[in-house]
């Protein structure tokens, strides 16, 4: 088998045992890698219905098909566990050196079972596994832990995925981090923390064998050349932060906890401002010629010294959405998240929920008492130091931070129960995952894509904002095209998330990002890597299968049609100002679009998957378990 090792490594933390499992080539042809293979490994290895923080919830890594080859932006891996935030599939992507070093070991996937009694660093050294004591790394930040492990092992070729203090402390919105990149969103850090798994390290010395290395090299460098032109200019020059002014102009920039879509301080938090005043260096993941990561620093004032990569999603969440226009403070908040190891998006949306609670009198100044401010502090929107301090309290689960560390769904439910309030009305999450930086009241196709998403409020797993923003459809109304559009865009995204290739390369194959522009080139890359004979349709099926295995997982965990919903505010409260003012996504509109979507997917009106559909996708064993 070319491009793969043909085997999965299993590690049992409880009994400190390992074993390996060989998989046939047909299995790889179905699930490829990334989020699809990771979700499939989760499907195969979990105890259905288990508590996400119990030993029965496995940690599943799946590397990319192109990791370790020169195929640009192919150095990525998928990570899946049952999410403690949503109770459904938690599938994330991260990339860079970890992925490349992982490819050079002997494994395509790693499944970590059980839980350790003491803190552990699992080292995968080619085909060998060591359980290293991780007690001394406790309390270290993510970047710091990686460096300390390299120091201890005397080798800078060792790459580690780690959790920071947030994951150790059981913060539910905690991430896993490697090489400064995050496997984010769905609470992997909390799952690792529950297993006392501080870090997974890899060192690989083997070469990567592909079917046709000459062709792969040649194709790779053609794509690399075009990746230096206009097709990636947005990402190379200002990065995704360029979205701030674009979204603001459309009235879609979440402001003060999604109360408005236009932020008066947008200029001060724009990609352009960041470039001029805070930019330190543009850096790339391993195997990437684009270099989108805009490393930025707070250069003066209270937060001087804070430095991390700044992109749009973490910027909107901690900036406009908290009413904060002080870029130094925003960089500090994101720096605290990245080093402490919790999700900067969920952090911003949770801080903004707490700020709205404060403004509405649900929380008082005293509720924010902490070591730094023993009498508490005022937490109105726009108070930068409040944003920074609440972020630190979440990381440390200090004081009110312990409540907020659960994310907005659980925090609002607990507060409403204890205080008789209705703070769920401004808890901006879907399925328990905090929402992304595009207000769905002004993007109706996207609203559907988010509602039916398998991992909750996530812009990465659906590209349904694309037809809305590009004006392919009227973004304020619904019509009978939306079901097909949501299906098409989520499966499009799933192809990239499964290979995985970073989506920022999508225009570099032929200049056109659509299926016709990209799928033939991707098929050729797959064939040169594996020796298979993939064509357009095979590539297209990768996306449908990826989405189907995740949906199947959710169904087995008890998903019903009612779970595909938006949050209260988007259904009931229109924005008052700006180009998207006056609109909500009514329940009727959403239910209508859901009908269209389930039909387009070939599912039942209840959103369940017919046996015949699963069999047609080659997923017979899944059909046995959840097919109707």
């Amino acid at each position, binding site marked *: 088998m070319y491009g793969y090792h043909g085997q999965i490594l299993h590690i049992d933390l409880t009994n400190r045992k390992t074993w390996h499992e060989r998989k046939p080539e047909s299995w790889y042809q179905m699930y490829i890698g990334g989020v699809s293979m990771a979700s499939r490994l989760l499907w195969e290895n979990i105890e259905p219905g288990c508590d996400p923080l119990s030993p029965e919830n496995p940690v599943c890594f799946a590397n990319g098909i192109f990791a370790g080859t020169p195929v*640009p932006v192919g150095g990525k891996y998928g990570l899946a566990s049952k999410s403690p935030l949503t109770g459904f599939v938690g599938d994330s992507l991260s990339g860079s050196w970890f992925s490349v070093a992982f490819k050079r070991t002997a494994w395509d996937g790693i499944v970590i079972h059980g839980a350790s009694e003491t803190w552990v660093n699992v080292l995968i050294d080619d085909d060998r596994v060591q359980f290293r004591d991780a007690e001394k790394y406790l309390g270290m930040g993510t*970047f710091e832990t990686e460096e300390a492990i390299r120091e201890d092992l005397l080798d800078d070729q060792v790459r580690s995925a780690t959790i920071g203090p947030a994951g150790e402390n059981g913060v539910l919105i905690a991430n896993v981090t490697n090489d400064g990149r995050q496997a984010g969103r769905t609470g992997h850090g909390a799952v690792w923390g529950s297993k006392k798994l501080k870090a997974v390290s890899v060192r690989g*010395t083997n070469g990567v*064998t*592909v079917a046709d290395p000459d062709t792969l090299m040649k194709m790779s460098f053609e794509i690399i050349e075009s990746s230096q032109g206009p097709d990636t200019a947005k990402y190379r020059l200002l990065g995704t932060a360029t979205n701030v002014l674009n979204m603001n102009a459309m009235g879609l920039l979440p402001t003060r906890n999604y109360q408005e879509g236009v932020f008066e301080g947008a200029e001060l938090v724009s990609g352009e401002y960041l470039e001029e005043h805070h930019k330190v260096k*543009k850096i*790339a993941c391993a*195997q990437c*010629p684009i270099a989108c990561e805009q490393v930025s620093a707070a250069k003066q004032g209270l937060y001087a010294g804070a*430095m991390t990569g700044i992109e749009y999603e973490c910027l909107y969440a901690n900036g406009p959405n908290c009413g904060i226009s002080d870029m130094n403070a925003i960089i500090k908040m994101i720096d605290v998240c990245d080093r402490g190891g919790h999700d900067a998006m969920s952090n911003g949306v949770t801080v903004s929920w707490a700020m709205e609670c404060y403004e509405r009198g649900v929380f008082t100044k005293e509720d924010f008492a902490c070591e730094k401010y023993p009498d508490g502090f005022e937490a109105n929107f726009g108070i930068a130091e409040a944003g920074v301090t609440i972020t630190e309290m979440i990381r440390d689960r200090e004081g009110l931070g312990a409540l907020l560390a659960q994310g907005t769904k659980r925090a609002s439910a607990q507060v409403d129960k204890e205080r008789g309030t209705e703070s769920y009305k401004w808890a901006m999450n879907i399925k328990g995952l905090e929402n992304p930086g595009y207000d769905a009241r002004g993007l109706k196709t996207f609203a559907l894509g988010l509602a039916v998403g398998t991992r909750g409020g996530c812009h990465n797993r659906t590209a349904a904002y694309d037809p809305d923003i590009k004006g392919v459809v009227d973004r304020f109304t619904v019509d009978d095209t939306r079901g097909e559009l949501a299906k098409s865009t989520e499966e499009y995204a799933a192809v990239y998330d499964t290979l995985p290739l970073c989506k920022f390369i999508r225009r570099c194959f032929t200049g056109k990002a659509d299926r016709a522009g990209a799928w033939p080139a991707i098929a050729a890359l797959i064939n040169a890597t594996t020796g298979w004979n993939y064509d357009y349709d095979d590539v297209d099926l990768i996306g449908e299968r990826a989405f189907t295995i995740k949906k199947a997982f959710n169904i087995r965990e008890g998903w019903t049609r009612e779970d595909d919903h938006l949050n209260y505010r988007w259904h009931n409260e229109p924005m008052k100002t700006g180009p998207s003012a006056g609109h909500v996504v009514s329940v009727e509109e959403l239910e209508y679009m859901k009908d269209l979507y389930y039909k387009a997917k070939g599912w039942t009106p209840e959103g369940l998957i017919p046996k015949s559909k699963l069999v047609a996708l080659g997923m017979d064993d899944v059909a046995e378990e959840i097919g109707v």
Partner: protein
Amino acid sequence: MITSTSKYKYITCDPDKCIGCQLCEYVCSYTKTGEYNTYRSRIRTVRVDEILITSIACRTCENAPCVTVCTRKALTQDEETGIIHVDADLCDGCAWCIEACDFGAISINPITKLAEICDQCEDEEDGPQCVLWCPKDALELTTPDRRAQRARHKLVTEEALR
């Protein structure tokens, strides 16, 4: 003490341009071994403190210390080009050359356990492949003198424009 180099060409990297993508390592390992294995690259990407990024390959020192310390005379330096050649029959992987190199530019092949050093792709018609393929034009094959000339040129241009 850093050993000096002045007369020979070597591959240099501009840290302002380098993004740390490692594509030089892929190209190198592929050119030299026929497989994709950045672990076996003769040029190495280095990242320190997240933002200091560059790549390092053999600097072709004059009177190269790696050659001097080799007890088995496995390393020889080409008088014309300064390129260090390793005789695989003589090398026993003792790693003294690695210790002698101030630039950390020599590595031991994990499979053969012998020393490997950048030879500027002297067998390739179009020269060093990493230089050819670097997407950011951060790498070049140059001499210290040429770099100094360019620095002077840049200084003069900037002062004239001021």
